């Protein structure tokens, strides 16, 4: 038997962030067992420390030459390192908001932080996955942690229902994805992305192989669309967003999108890039449906978490539109869009969490009436986020939409761009409705909102980043464009 297996400890150094994170997960898990209630905050600080060190280790690997280890199943390139830095960074921000929410709703448990770290590990595995098996394992590590995180508020039946719904639909999506992987494996004879790519790029590939590759591709696209929450595979998104505790909604709506995008790039661009003609049509249909359904259905929502869910669906449509173009700059624009979306969404959920008073979820849109009088600063942050999500110029959300549309137009899809703009204008209505509630309506309750210093500080930085990066977007844009 030919076995080209080599094992060198030095070669494992490129996986140092993952190794460190897994070790610290196990250590934090054990430490948390022995903590008395007096020191239970230690779990939170240890989690932040572990995530920070993981981020720094990933940051140091930026610029490292492209390396493939573990027999072609783990890749370290610039995209992987940069995404890992963003994943750990945004998870740290999410954790600051999360702790406030958990303490308010007496959900604070050590397992919560361990599960978040495991989800981060799953995402890092996905980002670095270079074989279908590794990508799938990463996805399952992420999903399993998220299912548990949703159900962690087990006394709320709506949360348990959301977790179960997500679990069942996630299992179906995994099944479809695996079926697609098995077809691609069956015809190409390998699960490594590089081998599949070589097989698909081979000019002597016959029509039968293309047919079966295409057959598997359809299931792969469905599986990815399920995970991204694109229409018509979006049914779980609003229910899960509404049912999950707000801190979990924030986490699952932001960071995993980066990992899902990375998986999309690895499978469809790195692996099946030569099949672009086949999957771009699917993507075109998925993205137009997502943009239209996401924009129109959100108009009727009264629950802000459901509204943000539909807004996410329409953002996902824009992200997928970047992949329709089939050029590297279009993919770069999609990456830029995802990073911007994470930044905006974190701030939006940060404000929602701050407005949660003890045991009370401020998840109705009418809860935002007269917010500018009670707490002008949070209202201002929310104003920035909403304007940015609507795509109003000085803010970062404008540039993300603009760069996608620019690429779409230059690729020749002018009608598509016009449709996207029309629905973006329609969606501006519900973003502006919140601003109207905050600034022009009278509050029916009269209470000032108090929040600890750390969350105020992080939220202010988060909000102002939306403006600052919006004024100087070229740096983030250059990073996004250089990754592929």
């Amino acid at each position, binding site marked *: 038997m030919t*076995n080209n297996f080599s094992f060198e400890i030095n070669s494992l150094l490129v996986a140092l962030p993952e190794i460190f994170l897994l070790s610290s997960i196990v250590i934090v898990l054990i430490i948390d067992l022995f903590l008395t209630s007096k020191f239970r905050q230690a779990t939170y600080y240890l989690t932040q420390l572990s995530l920070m060190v993981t981020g720094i280790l990933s940051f140091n690997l930026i610029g490292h030459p492209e390396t493939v280890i573990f027999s072609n199943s783990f890749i370290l390139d610039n995209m992987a390192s940069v995404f890992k830095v963003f994943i750990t960074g945004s998870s740290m921000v999410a954790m600051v908001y999360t702790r406030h929410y958990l303490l308010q709703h007496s959900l604070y*448990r050590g397992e919560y932080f361990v599960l978040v770290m495991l989800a981060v590990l799953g995402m890092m595995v996905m980002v670095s996955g270079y074989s279908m098996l590794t990508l799938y394992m990463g996805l399952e590590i992420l999903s*399993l942690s998220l299912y548990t995180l949703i159900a*962690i508020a087990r006394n709320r039946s709506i949360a348990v229902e959301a977790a179960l719904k997500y679990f069942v639909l996630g299992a179906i999506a995994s099944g479809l994805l695996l079926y697609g992987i098995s077809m691609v494996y069956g015809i190409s004879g390998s699960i490594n992305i590089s081998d599949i790519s070589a097989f698909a790029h081979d000019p002597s590939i016959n029509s*039968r192989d293309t047919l079966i590759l295409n057959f598997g591709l359809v299931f792969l696209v469905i599986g990815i669309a399920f995970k991204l929450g694109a229409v018509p595979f979006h049914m779980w998104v609003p229910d899960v967003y509404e049912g999950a505790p707000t801190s979990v909604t924030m986490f699952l709506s932001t960071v995993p999108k980066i990992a899902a995008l990375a998986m999309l790039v690895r499978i469809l661009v790195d692996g099946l890039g030569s099949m672009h003609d086949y999957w771009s049509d699917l993507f075109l249909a998925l993205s137009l449906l997502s943009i239209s359904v996401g924009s129109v259905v959100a108009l009727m929502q009264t629950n802000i978490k459901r509204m943000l869910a539909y807004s996410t669906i329409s953002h996902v449509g824009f992200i997928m539109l970047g992949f329709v173009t089939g050029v590297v700059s279009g993919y770069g624009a999609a990456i830029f869009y995802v990073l911007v979306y994470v930044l905006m969404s974190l701030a939006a959920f940060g404000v929602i969490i701050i407005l949660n008073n003890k045991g009370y979820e401020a998840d109705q849109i009418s809860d935002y009436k007269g917010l500018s009088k009670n707490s002008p600063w949070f209202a201002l942050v929310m104003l920035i986020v909403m304007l940015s999500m609507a795509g109003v110029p000085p803010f970062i959300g404008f540039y993300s939409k603009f760069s996608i549309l620019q690429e779409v137009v230059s690729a020749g899809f002018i009608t598509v761009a016009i449709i996207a703009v029309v629905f973006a204008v329609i969606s501006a209505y519900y973003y502006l409705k919140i601003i109207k509630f905050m600034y022009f309506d009278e509050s029916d309750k009269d209470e000032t909102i108090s929040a600890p210093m750390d969350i105020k500080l992080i939220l202010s930085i988060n909000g102002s980043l939306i403006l600052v990066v919006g004024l100087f977007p070229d740096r983030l844009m250059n990073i996004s464009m250089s990754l592929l």
Partner: protein
Amino acid sequence: MEFEQILFYLFSFWFIASSLAMILSRNTAFSALFLILSFFSAASLWLLLEAEFLAIILILVYVGAVMVLFLFVIKMLDIEDSTLRAKFTGYLPIGLGVAVIVIAEMSLVLGVDQFGLDVVPQPIRHASDYSNITELAMELYTIYVYPFELAAVLLLIAIIAAITLIHRPDKRAKKQSIEEQVNTQAKDRVRLVSIAPYKKKDEQ
């Protein structure tokens, strides 16, 4: 027809029939038993493919452990049959329609034209001393060591998740406190109450 072919069609028929019966059965316990039968048929098919290890594992782990546990769960939950079937007929037409379209489209691709013996050659049979397990182990602990470790992480999550969701410190639980039992005093156990003597009225 060779004997192997007869076996293949027999196991395949069982597999499909028991899977259908699992879905259509009204009794949840029967569904679980039909699922066990379909696991057995799948394991037999794998044996025909010379994947002995996988076949045995399927029976040992899924039939032996998972499904037996599942049967316990079903017996404990006592699910109301009518709630399960409430929307079945309502969703039946659209579900059936979608299923027929998907099956028709898939059968266009997954036919003899693409997977016939003239296109895909028959796999070569291994000698009788060929060890499936050795081959698997060689691959699993060398080339696939990274996914193997990740599977371990997945199991860790499953443990954490199960404990997080199920474990709840129950205040009503009657736990034995040994410390309290040892330190107890005679006066804690016996309470002497002085009651004034009296006679029942009808004895007078």
